[in-house]
């Protein structure tokens, strides 16, 4: 299929696995820790980042031949900041509660290293279509980690998923308790570490040499 040649396929799917921004490049950790105490904000954050990376990549890619080199970082920042502001405005209008939970972290998407990294490394040197796929891929690569971490933190920390009680009352009566540690940021980094552990043991070529 012409739409997805093997090269563009690698651009889209690479960041989901062997080139993942969070667990391989270890970028975007700050927000991954902060917003994942519940599944719903994790999902919304993931969607927001996918949209912003994809469209920022496309816009920068379209402008790449006209951007003066001296102010290219400023141009990238303005584009990203504008998109993030739009996302934040839309959230305030259509998902007010989630927006309150995400608080400053929607605004802080601007400073997410994944974004600037992709704009500098990819969008400035590639056409709009591959750039779009690269943005989607990296956004999803970041997003699925958030969703997995959010899933376990909410399940084990609150006994709910999307605010719906899933751990049955009988468990609590039998002495089961929600793990309060799951609600705190340190547990998020431990969960990310567990994902990295599983991922590395399945992809031996990513393991660092040890002496």
């Amino acid at each position, binding site marked *: 299929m012409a739409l997805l040649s093997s090269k563009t396929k690698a651009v889209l799917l690479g960041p989901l696995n062997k080139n993942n921004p969070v667990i391989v490049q270890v970028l975007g950790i700050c927000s991954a820790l902060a917003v994942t105490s519940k599944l719903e904000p994790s999902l919304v954050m993931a969607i927001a980042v996918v949209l912003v990376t994809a469209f920022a990549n496309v816009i920068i890619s379209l402008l790449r031949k006209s951007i003066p080199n001296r*102010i290219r970082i400023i141009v990238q920042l303005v584009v990203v900041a504008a998109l993030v502001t739009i996302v934040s405005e839309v959230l305030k209008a259509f998902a007010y509660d989630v927006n309150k939970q995400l608080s400053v972290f929607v605004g802080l998407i601007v400073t997410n290293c994944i974004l600037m990294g992709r704009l500098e490394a990819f969008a400035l040197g590639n056409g709009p279509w591959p750039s779009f796929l690269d943005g989607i891929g990296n956004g999803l690569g970041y997003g699925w980690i958030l969703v997995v971490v959010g899933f376990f933190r909410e399940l084990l920390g609150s006994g709910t998923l999307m605010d719906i009680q899933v751990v049955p009352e009988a468990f609590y009566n039998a002495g089961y308790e929600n793990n309060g540690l799951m609600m705190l940021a340190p547990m998020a980094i431990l969960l990310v570490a567990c994902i990295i552990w599983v991922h590395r043991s399945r992809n031996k070529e990513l393991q660092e040499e040890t002496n």
Partner: protein
Amino acid sequence: MNRESSAYTIIYSVVMVVIVALGLAFTHQVLIDRQTANENIDKMQQILRSLNINASTSEAQERYAELIQDAYLIDSEGRKVEGTEGTTPDDLAFSTELEDPAAAGIPVYEAEVDGSVKYVIPMSGTGLWGSIWGYLAVESDGSAIYGAEFDHAGETPGLGAEIADTPFKSRFQGKELFRDGQFRSIAVVKPGRSVANRDYVDGISGGTITSQGVDNMLLQSVGKYRNFLENLNAANR
């Protein structure tokens, strides 16, 4: 035109900024109505929570209209400012901020719960990292607390942020703002401590500055209603 020349760079940035500004202004204009509606519902939910009612987003407006019988501004003497009555979000009593120095007065919300009248007053102050605010529902004697609601912009999760949790808020129920006919407000103290001449609740362990912020807010914001509460207290004792 040379892409690296200064003139090109300046023109490029000017055009870019103008386009971005127009785009953002347009987005804001399109969405502002929905955003305001959300903020109003959020405020209604907070007022309802101070009356110990947890209303979901969808039912908040209905419950609010049902419970809040009257809302108005009061002047510094505690008297109702004529012409400010009205309970809808478009009325002055709803839209006026406590801290607005140009406002005609400070807002009071009158609710009727199970046949008795409660007065809800807003509070605002400063915590450790940013602003904190809340609502206090006072019984018709102007002294006993029926319920309290607190929220914050960004206090530390697990520590100061716990002022927004039910265990802390419920400590205020039944406390008295007046002691021996004098307005004393309610103190927030370190857990285990006590104060002699006024009612007090335990603060948050590890959230000392936030607790002090709540203590200060109870003194400053509620203090603005002193005359109003004294009038109520004198009339209904």
